[in-house]
């Protein structure tokens, strides 16, 4: 069984907690009702690798269908990878004992986008927050409740909130509850899937600041799935830009915003909304839309929309190169 009390926080900030290596997720496409046969694969995630470090945040940005949500699901063991491995503190979580898997599950928690669907409307707040403890820890009811109160305080809510039902809270408060629940097991990694995009503008800053404070306090690693580059700049230490299931550029956040290098990253930056009417932005309007992951283009997946495409781009797949420490990308221009 897992420990009864919180595991000691021994990790140093910056220590690699989790490593994803060559992760792939292909969804088979089938035809036929009774006797179905596989006619192709949707390559939702196609060979990506990254690391999560204690006390740091990896932002994953990309447009819909780029595979960022599937990646999050694989991290949370909601989807089995088709290939590749997730190493948690050095152990491959898919090829190991049930106990290690269980420990992994309680070490990696999540906060989702929609605060209206992430809390069971029929449970009281105290039961929602205590549920992970009920499942994973053998501690008494009073110990659970004591911890629920502490978690509520941590996320800026009061003890009297514990007896209420979710519908009695506003969106921002619900997101706080979701965060409290995610923290219940003292996780090492929290996957944040667009945690603020469903909230009102004035509430977003509250939640982002809260997440940052909690990270400092508990030295937890975040993986932030986002589509808004400004949010990524504020929240993250690292950024991975995804396109059609692949990471096209991975970089420390400062470096990426000073020196965006992949043409797709540049296009995303130019398409992002300015924070001031006089802000200078390159005008790169990408033509067309993201191709279907069922039938991705040859060579570099981005070449049909790339303003800098060359002949070899349509033939040859670019390999990943490191252009400065920690900053790597896949493009023939480099």
């Amino acid at each position, binding site marked *: 069984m897992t420990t009864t009390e919180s595991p000691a926080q021994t990790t140093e900030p910056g220590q690699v907690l989790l490593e994803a290596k060559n992760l792939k997720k292909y969804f088979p496409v089938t035809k036929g009702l009774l006797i179905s046969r596989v006619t192709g694969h949707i390559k939702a995630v196609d060979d990506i690798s990254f690391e999560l470090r204690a006390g740091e945040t990896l932002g994953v940005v990309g447009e819909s269908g780029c595979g960022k949500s599937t990646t999050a699901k694989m991290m*949370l*063991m*909601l989807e089995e990878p088709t290939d590749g491995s997730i190493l948690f503190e050095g152990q491959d979580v898919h090829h190991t004992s049930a106990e290690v898997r*269980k420990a992994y*599950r*309680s070490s*990696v*928690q*999540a906060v*989702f*986008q*929609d605060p209206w*669907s*992430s*809390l*069971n*409307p*029929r*449970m009281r707040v105290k039961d*929602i927050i205590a*549920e*992970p403890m009920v*499942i*994973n820890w053998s501690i008494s009811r009073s110990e659970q409740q004591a911890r629920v109160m502490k978690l509520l*305080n*941590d*996320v*800026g*809510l*009061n003890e009297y909130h514990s007896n*209420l039902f979710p519908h*009695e*809270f*506003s969106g*921002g*408060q619900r997101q*706080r509850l*979701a965060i409290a*629940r995610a923290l219940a*097991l003292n996780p090492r990694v929290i996957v944040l899937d667009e945690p603020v995009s469903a909230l009102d503008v004035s509430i977003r800053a*509250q939640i982002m*600041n*809260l997440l940052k*404070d909690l990270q400092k306090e508990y030295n937890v690693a975040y993986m932030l799935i986002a589509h808004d580059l400004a949010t990524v700049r504020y929240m993250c230490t690292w950024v991975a830009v995804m396109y059609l299931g692949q990471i096209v550029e991975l970089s420390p956040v400062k470096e990426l915003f000073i020196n965006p290098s992949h043409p797709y990253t540049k296009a995303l930056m130019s398409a992002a909304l300015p924070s001031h009417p006089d802000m200078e932005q390159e005008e790169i309007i990408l033509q067309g839309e993201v191709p279907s992951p069922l039938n991705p283009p040859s060579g570099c997946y981005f070449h049909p929309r790339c303003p800098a495409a060359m002949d070899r781009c349509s033939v040859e797949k670019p390999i990943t190169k490191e252009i400065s420490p920690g900053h790597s990308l896949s493009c023939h221009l480099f």
Partner: protein
Amino acid sequence: MAADLSGIVIAPPTRRAKAAGVYRKIKRWPVIPMFLLGLVVFAGLFAPLIAPHDPESGELRERNIPPAWSNGERAVKTVVERMTINERTTSVTLSDAQKIDPNIQLGDRIEVFVRPAGSTKFLLGTDHLGRDVLSRVIYGARISILVSVVTLAVGGTIGVTMGLMAGWYGGFVDEFLMRLVDIKLAIPLILIALVLVITLGQSLWIIVTVLCLFIWPRFARQVRGEVLQLKHMDYVSLAKVSGASTPRILFIHIFPGTINTLIVVATLQVGIVILLESTLSFLGAGVPPPTPAWGSMVADGRDKLAGGVWWISTFPGIAIMLTVMSLNLFGDWLRDTLDPRLRQLE
């Protein structure tokens, strides 16, 4: 820092708003259906205490007595020595006539009761075997309640389990269970019931079985649809992330979400069950006589309708109609009240 941001106080609704809410609820309550249903349940539960007579035995000489408010019917008939069937409406035998008036002579004309007047002893009259119709209607509620409760418990449980499995596992399990539902639609269950009764004899358990077979698919379908929606809720994914087992997810996170729908489906199904039970009883495949069931009572009175003996069939018929209609109205109201999508439209 973060801690003081919570000064968001959830203001309780004011007293006036609460009162207005209660008023609105009462205004919308289906008072009449609820009252009638309460009456049926009460009658069923306390039948031995409230029924004025034994529902299963009666005096033959008290047969076909009309309801209390009926005045009876008189006719003038000729006294004859002997009469043929054809003369029954116009003649009366001497021996019978002398019971009314000992001095009567052959050939006299005499006024006789064609049908006796009602008496307060039998408020709704008696049937062809002299049994009190009111008592039988009251006891009949018992059978209807018994059959519906057992059927709902068994059929509902089967249906809910099937629905949960089909919705949760999807794929082959779903396909298989939903094809079972389709098969049920293609089977003439009343015919099967009749065959079963002919081969195995009449019993309560046969109807309960047949009715269970009839109602489970409805539950299965509704629950399946609900599960298909609920299983994509983020809180279900989060429960998985926390390591919750499948039974835990199904019973703590999914099943409670279907309860509102289940209550509505159950209410509407009770109406159907009562109607079907009555149909089967009417066809003679129901509860074995002499146990009073509304359906078989309607059947009993059916061939007497022509002779003007209307009350044997009518009162149990009204009971069926009012009960089923009340259940439907009540069920509609429940659906409107419990379905959050409709509630928002208020």
